[in-house]
């Protein structure tokens, strides 16, 4: 061995360490400092000289014919620049995420409380609000179609969309339907195989995403006749695809740049004020800013589908599941939004992470005159999990079994088949997750001698000093798909550029990924560091100048756009090394980029990247496509429909004031398999945040809708968990790699939101003995006042 080689190997020991800020590390957010300084520019912070403020007139009725709209008085208000109705729309009048069934402004009728009818642009937001009040609309108010029974009987109650208006539907007021049969289905013969049968009807209320940053943005008319929109969204390209036909502009003249996003959780998948701001800007020739107030935000985005579910499960005496019969009815409200995908998830995941030989499933989404429902974290799977996990507890009780053991006995594992016929071809450690969550230490018992009232149910309301308080413990597990399913090719694009800046190799990552808070920007930089051996990474602002990144939803961004960044960075590395081989005649096949250098495992450092790059940049763009899936068969539900599955198990400990019906969640534990934690700090943060939204659904969050009207469109009346409502959330993560995914990772954002709610309800059931078939659980469900 020559001394030179030894020296090379010593060098190697020093530098052959991946950056601690690469994947698997927890570097700090690149936008963190800006955010804590108050300098991060959110969509509502956009400002332009001479900008106008836009606002919308919204319907007070859930169902009405519009007989006339008179804007003349509104136009006379000093400071008003424009008042627009659907007649002023230059292009297509309808848009939609999956089905173009929603008018950009109401045409001759309104179908939900809060539907936008007209727009005003004025020099001050208050001027715009006052002008809106001067618009005269003559309505013929109709009885809204709001219940399942009414929706399913259009002969009597009518249609939300007249049959000839439907862009797509199954039948009547049914927007989408998915059936599924596996094994022998559910027949009398199959039922006879079960020793024990339990059934139940369950209901889930309408949850809101309640992101804190309201819908907002700034539209700036451009000299080329197009428009530039600075916007908080989850998917820039699909916004543009829906906007351009309405604005009657070619795609390239509708340019979107991501502004700071104050949370999303599915609520920004559909358009809100995008088209409205652009219509006003193009009409007035001035920049127009729209910022929703909180009440308008409740009307301006879709919500989580409320659900009514009927479940029947049969098992043998020793606890083996024999069959499951499920019917899930989701209220999609006035417009389709993501209803078809929500139905697909409910149908294909609605039996839970269990091996069940015989399954029959029927899932539908209805059109109604209730608020539109669409995407919210865990969609379709969240509602169903409350149903099947409630059933597991009911079955365990009927069998006299431990509820965790019953779940473990029937848990799916790698190699099992879903009722869709899809093999689970990656780790599925459901039984292990349950065991781990059960083995985590329990919190200390309630101190009844010297309780701190702030930690009791009722907390600062000082409603109990420990009397009437009962503790309960509950368990649950859930399953969610990652990425878009049923044949959808939701590819992601990334551009990576490597060049020398200030004497250092610097990577620049450009994608259209919507950073909504999840930390995708942190992970992209980590991937670039790992793949290119650099420390300095710049994240280019997300815009439509690069290809689509798909949606920041379905737990998919790290998998999909992270995967695209990996591919593009690998391509940059390949090109750089080829350049070196060509220039210097390297013959080694063991080259890598580490610590800013080209390193051979056998020969040591060959050259610094600064020297190899010189003045030339290397840039590559790549698309990342996940493996193909297929639509589920309409009648049998069979098909390789999902890209990846993800699982989380929870244990909830609650204290219940059984006299007042108040609940305090004492601890909410989560164990989740994440495949590979690219950024453990962010992964844990996602799981804790997801658990907390599940807590909200379990005990407090619901948009109250009566006869089609929203009754609580404010943070005074729609309650989300405060820091006092939220308990410690211990998290354990497993990393069992998925061989199909980049780095083996698994999408993490949604699984805890699916699984945590039923554990809390189970714990309350244990404390109170109440059946609790509806969420959110309210005080009147726990006392005898109902």
């Amino acid at each position: 061995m020559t001394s030179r080689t030894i020296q090379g190997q010593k060098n190697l020991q020093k530098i052959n360490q991946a950056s601690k800020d690469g994947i698997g590390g927890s570097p700090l957010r690149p936008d963190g400092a800006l955010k804590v300084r108050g300098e991060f520019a959110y969509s509502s912070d956009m400002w332009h000289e001479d900008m106008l403020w836009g606002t919308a007139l919204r319907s007070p009725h859930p169902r009405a014919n519009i007989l006339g709209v008179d804007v003349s008085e509104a136009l006379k208000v000093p400071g008003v620049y424009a008042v627009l109705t659907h007649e002023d729309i230059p292009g297509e009048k309808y848009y939609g995420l999956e089905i173009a069934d929603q008018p950009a402004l109401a045409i001759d009728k309104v179908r939900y409380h809060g539907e936008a009818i007209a727009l005003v642009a004025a020099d001050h937001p208050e001027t715009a609000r006052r002008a809106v009040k001067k618009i005269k609309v003559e309505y013929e108010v109709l009885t809204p179609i709001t219940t399942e029974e009414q929706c399913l009987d259009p002969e009597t109650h009518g249609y939300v969309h007249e049959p000839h208006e439907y862009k797509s539907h199954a039948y009547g007021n049914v927007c989408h339907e998915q059936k599924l049969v596996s094994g022998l289905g559910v027949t009398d013969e199959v039922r006879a195989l079960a020793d024990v049968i339990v059934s139940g009807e369950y209901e889930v209320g309408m949850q809101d995403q309640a992101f804190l940053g309201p819908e907002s943005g700034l539209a700036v008319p451009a000299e080329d006749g197009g428009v530039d929109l600075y916007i908080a969204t989850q998917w820039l390209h699909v916004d543009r695809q829906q906007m351009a036909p309405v604005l009657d502009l070619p795609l390239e003249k509708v340019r979107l740049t991501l502004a700071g996003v104050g949370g999303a959780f599915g609520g920004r998948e559909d358009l809100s004020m995008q088209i409205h701001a652009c219509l006003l800007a193009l009409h007035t020739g001035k920049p127009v800013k729209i910022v929703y107030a909180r009440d308008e935000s409740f009307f301006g985005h879709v919500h989580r589908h409320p659900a009514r579910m009927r479940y029947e499960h049969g098992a043998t005496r020793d606890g083996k599941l024999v069959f499951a019969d499920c019917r899930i009815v989701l209220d999609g409200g006035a417009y389709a939004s993501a209803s078809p995908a929500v139905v697909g998830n409910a149908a294909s995941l609605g039996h839970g992470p269990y091996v069940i030989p015989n399954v029959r499933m029927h899932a539908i989404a209805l059109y109604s005159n209730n608020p539109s429902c669409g995407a919210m974290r865990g969609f379709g799977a969240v509602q169903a999990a409350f149903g099947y996990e409630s059933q597991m507890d009911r079955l365990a009780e009927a069998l006299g079994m431990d509820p965790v053991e019953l779940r473990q006995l029937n848990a799916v594992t790698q190699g099992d088949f879903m009722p869709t016929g899809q093999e689970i071809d990656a780790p599925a450690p459901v039984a292990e997750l349950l065991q781990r969550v059960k083995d985590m230490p329990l919190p200390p018992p309630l101190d009844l001698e010297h309780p701190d009232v702030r930690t009791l149910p009722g907390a600062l309301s000082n409603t109990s000093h420990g009397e009437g308080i009962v503790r309960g413990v509950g368990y649950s597990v859930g399953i969610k798909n990652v990425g878009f399913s049923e044949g959808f090719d939701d590819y992601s694009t990334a551009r990576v550029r490597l060049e020398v800046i200030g004497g250092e190799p610097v990577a620049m990552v450009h994608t259209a990924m919507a950073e909504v808070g999840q930390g995708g920007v942190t992970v992209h930089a980590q991937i670039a560091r790992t793949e290119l051996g650099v420390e300095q990474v710049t994240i280019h602002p997300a815009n439509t100048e690069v290809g689509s990144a798909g949606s920041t939803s379905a737990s998919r961004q790290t998998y999909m756009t992270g995967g695209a960044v990996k591919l593009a960075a690998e391509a940059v590395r390949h090109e750089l090394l080829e350049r070196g081989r060509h220039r210097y005649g390297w013959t080694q096949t063991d080259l890598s980029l580490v610590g800013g250098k080209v390193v051979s495992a056998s020969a040591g450092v060959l050259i610094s990247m600064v020297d190899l790059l010189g003045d030339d940049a290397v840039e590559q763009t790549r698309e990342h496509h996940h493996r193909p899936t297929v639509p589920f068969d309409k009648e049998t539900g069979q098909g390789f429909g999902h890209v990846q599955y993800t699982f989380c198990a929870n244990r909830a400990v609650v204290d219940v004031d059984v006299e007042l019906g108040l609940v305090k969640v004492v601890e909410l534990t989560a164990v989740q398999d994440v495949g590979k934690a690219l950024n453990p700090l962010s992964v844990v943060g996602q799981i804790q945040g997801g658990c907390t939204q599940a807590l909200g659904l379990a005990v407090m969050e619901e948009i109250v809708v009566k006869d089609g009207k929203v009754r609580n469109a404010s943070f005074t009346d729609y309650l989300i968990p405060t820091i006092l409502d939220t308990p410690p959330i211990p998290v354990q993560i497993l990393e069992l790699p998925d061989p199909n995914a980049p780095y083996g990772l698994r999408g993490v954002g949604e699984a805890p939101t699916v699984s945590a709610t039923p554990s809390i309800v189970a714990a309350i059931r244990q404390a109170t003995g109440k059946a609790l078939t509806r969420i959110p659980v309210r005080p009147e469900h726990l006392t005898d006042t109902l």
Partner: protein
Amino acid sequence: MRVTFSANGKPVEADDVWEGESLLYVLRERVGLPGSKNACEQGECGSCTVYLDGVPVCSCLVAAGQVQGREVRTVEGLGGEDGELGLVQQAFVDAGAVQCGFCTPGLLVQTDALLASDPQPSDTDIREALSGNLCRCTGYEKIMDAVRLASARTCSAEVRK
């Protein structure tokens, strides 16, 4: 109307203020301090929390005219004089307490006020003090970590003095 007040130690003046405007609106739209956030604009979420004469308030609930001649300190005024992050700001970044960040400005002001009055709060004290500040992303665990970290750093800084 014209409103003059002190923002982060500097005199500011806003002209043509409509009487119905809030302090939050004036800060964000008229004097170039958009750091305080507009999440509910009815005093429920705490995202707009600022110091008014040293007392944390929801700036959305303060009429602009009420701040005439008074002192306002916002999230933009929490940093060190040398442009470094302030102690509470740094703790929020370090602990992973920032996701979307929309609640962060209000939480920073409220945490700053808590630690000024009680440098070593118990967990329950922290939860009580921050119970008027909604966060939708984090589940609050990393926020708890951030306040504990800021508390520990405050105390060790005191010891060093």
